[in-house]
């Protein structure tokens, strides 16, 4: 059939293609061959068709398009001879698939061939049909195939069985037709026919409930017997693989039994013996045996409960875990994860082996083992397991450390029995793998530390020791400097020593060394350095004797190239230098952070922005219950620092002074007060009210509104007039220093600077507000506003109060109003002072709220003032 004349022989073509040195060369050869083939096709000479198609198939395998050859397949299939049909069908399967319409044209040939007298031809047709038929073809030819399941030749029967499998997949409606034929196949002795019959039944059971019922009732026992026979059979060389007779058949039978037993207690009952037999008798030193065992375990897990069988299955998996072959270990770990759902106890017994797998050289096994271990953790074994995992953490690969440390942290958080253990474990993890630990994890640690007041001393000492050794672990350093900052006094005075501790001598200087090191180390990042500065500020108050040294360190940072550092350094230095009177209250021990709230927020990941639900009320000195702050602060949200998308973490970030995003000048309050108003409220309302009250000082720094005993008033943007007897007013010239407002000084009512036109800030039917502007000091950022409130109604307003809120880039200070009573058609005035840190870039804007009593009833008016003159 390899004609000498027309064109190259297949072998020669292959050789010449392989001889090509470059892709271009190969393309050339292929192009030429295709041209020849096309020409030959056009001549319609049957002799060369066979060879042409063979060549085309090879060319197709190289990746070239060969559509023009598709019709040749059809012609070959339609030829009478076997060799032609054979290559035609082969070409069909290779060059076409079910989605191509050309395939439909073959249906007729297929039908004829399915009825051919030559059973080899029948075989060809069944093969092609089974591999690529479409749904229509399946429907058309189903009756033929069904008939062939009962054919005398086993080769045909098995092909017909598998072809039927495809047919019912394509056309599930036809399933019923095949039930009877399929069940007869189950009685076969010929392995090939038997296995194909089993597969057909499996397919029928999964797509058709009636089939499932039928086979379950009629065939379960027969199948069990077949499995038993084959398990017990003598050595059959033809089917033997590593001592098991036809492991493939074992596996298929087990699969089918699984489907039949699942959800049915009776069927499951029948199977337990044979399953136990297979599970215990099968040799497991070779892959074939293990493959059978694995299938057996799957089946045991899927059928209705017999707990002894389940334990047997889990033990098999446990044995797998110690197998040298990592395929087997992998497979076992997968299954064990499913098995935990059924029988946690049984899996617990293999904990040690599973732990060994965490240390496996294969990464995918380590991963699975770690997953499995974390599912096994409970209150009883958590300490032991954590110890093992942490020990391993020290020696594990870098790329595994991240997963491992994350898992350890989550285990520790969930199951820790006592705080001191939690802190110990976390310290170990941070020391080993701090750089992989995520922010929310170390934030949580700080929350816990803060709540464990009896452990403050212990913790800070432990951290101090740790950070001396592991100073390159960033997160450890951060936690350590926060603690040293907060609890530095406990550190140097060995306060709160626990029985288990050895005393250590840490001088104030040593402690400051650590913090200074964090700033000056070249690989510290911004967050760490910023935190270190805050810690220094705290220490400057707690360690008065080396306050000078601390001041020097801070001063050095004034020249830092990092803006945030510079800013903080300048502000903190200012506090240290000139505001010693308020420093200690500023950096007082932080109130305990509310764990419950933190956890809720962390879980819910609410963005810590203004618009949260909790609306605590703030009581303002005049006794007027303030409205929820949320509204007032709801000004252009791009101005208000909505916290970056994750969550409760920002809540903590604020407290740690870590928030680097806020642009407006923060004075050195340890928690930078933020737009996350209610969060801050929570903290401060839960914590102990701040006791320190220096004579003129106020926690409420930025509103500089004089004494309030109310700790909850620490919001930078909400101001209200203080009780009249405290008058605090504008600073003396020079640099705008917020805190200078605290020391009483004469106000300057200078009205230098360009004049700005007055505006009507607000007008309603009952009230009108006018603003007039002046620029007192030479500072262009500062504006003095005189507000005049005019009562337009015929009634008197009493308990008149004006409140205002501004975005973060503005600072607002309100002087007390001239009066709280506004007679009809009368007016009162009030002075406001506004500082615009974005002077020149952004205009003033203000939200205001007026409350008063009218005829005994409370009235509230509010509005937004957008019409400030530009340039203020």
């Amino acid at each position, binding site marked *: 059939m390899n004609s000498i004349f027309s064109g190259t022989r297949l072998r020669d073509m292959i050789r010449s293609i392989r001889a090509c040195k470059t892709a271009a060369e190969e393309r050339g050869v292929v192009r030429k061959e295709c041209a020849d083939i096309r020409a030959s096709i056009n001549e319609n000479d049957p002799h060369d068709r066979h060879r042409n198609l063979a060549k085309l*198939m090879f060319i197709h395998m190289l990746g070239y398009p060969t559509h023009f050859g598709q019709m040749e397949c059809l012609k070959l299939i339609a030829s009478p001879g076997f060799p032609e049909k054979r290559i035609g069908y082969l070409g069909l399967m290779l060059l076409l698939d079910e989605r191509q319409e050309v395939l439909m044209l073959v249906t007729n040939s297929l039908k004829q061939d399915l009825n051919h007298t030559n059973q*080899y031809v029948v075989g060809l047709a069944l093969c092609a049909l089974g591999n690529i038929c479409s749904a229509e073809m399946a429907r058309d030819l189903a009756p033929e195939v069904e008939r062939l399941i009962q054919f005398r030749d086993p080769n045909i029967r098995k092909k017909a069985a598998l072809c039927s499998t495809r047919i019912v997949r394509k056309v599930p409606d036809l399933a019923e037709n095949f039930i009877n034929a399929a069940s007869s196949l189950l009685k076969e002795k010929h392995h090939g026919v038997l296995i194909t019959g089993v597969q057909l039944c499996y397919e029928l059971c999964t797509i058709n409930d009636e089939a499932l019922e039928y086979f379950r009732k009629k065939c379960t026992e027969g199948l069990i017997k077949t499995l038993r026979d084959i398990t017990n059979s003598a050595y059959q060389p033809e089917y033997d693989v590593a001592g098991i007779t036809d*492991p493939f058949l074992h596996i298929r039978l087990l699969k089918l039994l699984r489907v039949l037993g699942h959800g049915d207690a009776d069927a499951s009952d029948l199977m337990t013996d044979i399953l136990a037999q297979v599970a215990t008798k099968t040799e497991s030193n070779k892959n074939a045996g293990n493959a059978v065992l694995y299938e057996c375990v799957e089946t045991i897990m899927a059928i209705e409960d017999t707990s002894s069988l389940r334990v047997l299955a889990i033990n098999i998996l446990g044995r797998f875990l110690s197998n040298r072959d990592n395929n087997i270990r992998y497979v076992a770990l997968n299954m064990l994860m499913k098995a935990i759902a059924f029988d946690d106890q049984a899996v617990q017994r293999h904990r040690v082996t599973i732990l060994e797998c965490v240390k496996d050289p294969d990464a*995918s096994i380590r991963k699975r083992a770690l997953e499995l271990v974390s599912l096994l953790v409970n209150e009883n074994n958590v300490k032991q397991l954590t110890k093992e995992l942490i020990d391993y953490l020290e020696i594990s690969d870098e790329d595994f450390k991240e997963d491992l440390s994350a898992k350890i942290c989550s285990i520790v958080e969930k199951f820790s029995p006592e705080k001191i253990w939690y802190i110990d474990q976390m310290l170990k993890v941070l020391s080993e793998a701090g750089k992989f630990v995520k922010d929310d994890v170390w934030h949580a640690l700080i929350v816990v530390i803060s709540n464990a007041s009896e452990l403050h001393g212990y913790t800070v000492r432990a951290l101090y020791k740790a950070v001396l050794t592991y100073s390159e672990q960033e997160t450890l350093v951060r936690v350590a400097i926060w603690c040293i900052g907060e609890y530095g006094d406990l550190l140097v005075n060995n306060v709160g020593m626990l029985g288990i501790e050895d005393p250590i001598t840490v001088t104030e200087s040593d402690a400051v060394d650590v913090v200074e090191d964090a700033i000056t180390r070249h690989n510290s990042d911004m967050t760490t350095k910023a935190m270190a500065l805050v810690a220094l500020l705290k220490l400057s108050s707690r360690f008065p004797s080396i306050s000078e040294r601390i001041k020097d360190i801070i001063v050095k940072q004034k020249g830092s190239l990092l803006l945030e550092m510079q800013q903080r350094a300048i502000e903190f230095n200012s506090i240290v230098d000139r505001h010693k009177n308020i420093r200690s209250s500023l950096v007082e021990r932080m109130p305990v952070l509310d764990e419950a709230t933190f956890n809720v927020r962390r879980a819910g990941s609410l963005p810590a922005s203004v618009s949260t639900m909790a609306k605590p009320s703030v009581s303002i000195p005049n006794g007027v219950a303030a409205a929820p702050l949320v509204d007032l602060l709801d000004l252009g949200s791009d101005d208000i620092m909505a916290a970056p998308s994750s969550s409760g973490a920002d809540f903590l970030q604020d407290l740690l002074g870590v928030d680097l995003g806020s642009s407006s000048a923060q004075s050195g309050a340890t928690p930078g007060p933020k737009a996350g108003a209610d969060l801050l409220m929570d903290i401060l309302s839960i914590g102990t009210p701040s006791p320190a009250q220096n004579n003129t000082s106020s926690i409420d720094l930025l509103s500089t509104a004089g004494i309030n005993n109310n700790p909850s008033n620490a919001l930078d943007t909400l101001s209200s007039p203080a009780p009249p007897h405290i008058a605090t007013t504008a600073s003396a010239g020079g640099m705008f220093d917020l805190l200078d407002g605290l020391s009483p000084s004469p106000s300057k009512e200078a009205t230098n600077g360009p004049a700005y036109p007055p505006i009507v800030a607000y007008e309603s039917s009952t009230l009108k507000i006018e603003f007039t502007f002046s620029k007192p000091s030479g500072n262009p950022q500062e504006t003095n506003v005189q507000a005049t409130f005019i009562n337009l109604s015929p009634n008197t307003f009493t308990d008149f109060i004006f409140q205002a809120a501004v975005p973060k880039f503005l600072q607002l200070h309100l002087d007390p109003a001239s009066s709280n009573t506004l007679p009809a058609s009368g007016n009162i005035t009030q002075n406001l002072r506004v500082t615009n840190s974005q002077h020149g870039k952004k205009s003033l804007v203000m939200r205001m709220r007026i409350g008063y009593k009218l005829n005994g009833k409370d009235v509230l008016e509010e509005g937004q003032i957008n019409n400030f003159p530009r340039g203020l």
Partner: protein
Amino acid sequence: MRLLIRFILLQNRQGKTRLAKYYVPLEESEKHKVEYEVHRLVVNRDSKFTNFVEFRTHKVIYRRYAGLFFSLCVDITDNELAYLECIHLFVEILDHFFSNVCELDLVFNFHKVYLILDEFILAGELQETSKRAIIERMSELEKLE
């Protein structure tokens, strides 16, 4: 959850496909992509790793014999160890048929390799588990050529 073999690939280390049989329909371009991806997945895997890789939403079971990678794509829940046996049986059959098979045999006789495969697996399922039976069948068919 179809428990059938989705495709079988024989590729050499350079990524040349020596056999590609698909039991699910795929466009030509998709097939090329699949072949490229599978090759990349298996060719770089160290021998100490398992013989199973996740591939899209399925699983590929593979094994290397000399310079050839035999890859089977199956459902992610299927029994991996069984398919390893399957691959091995196929290799044994080829070895027997070609008498110590080498890659070149498979290149020059690619159509025969497909014919052998078609006697071993049909519609993505096992058709015959006896090596002897398959070899016998092949010689019967050869006689008809």
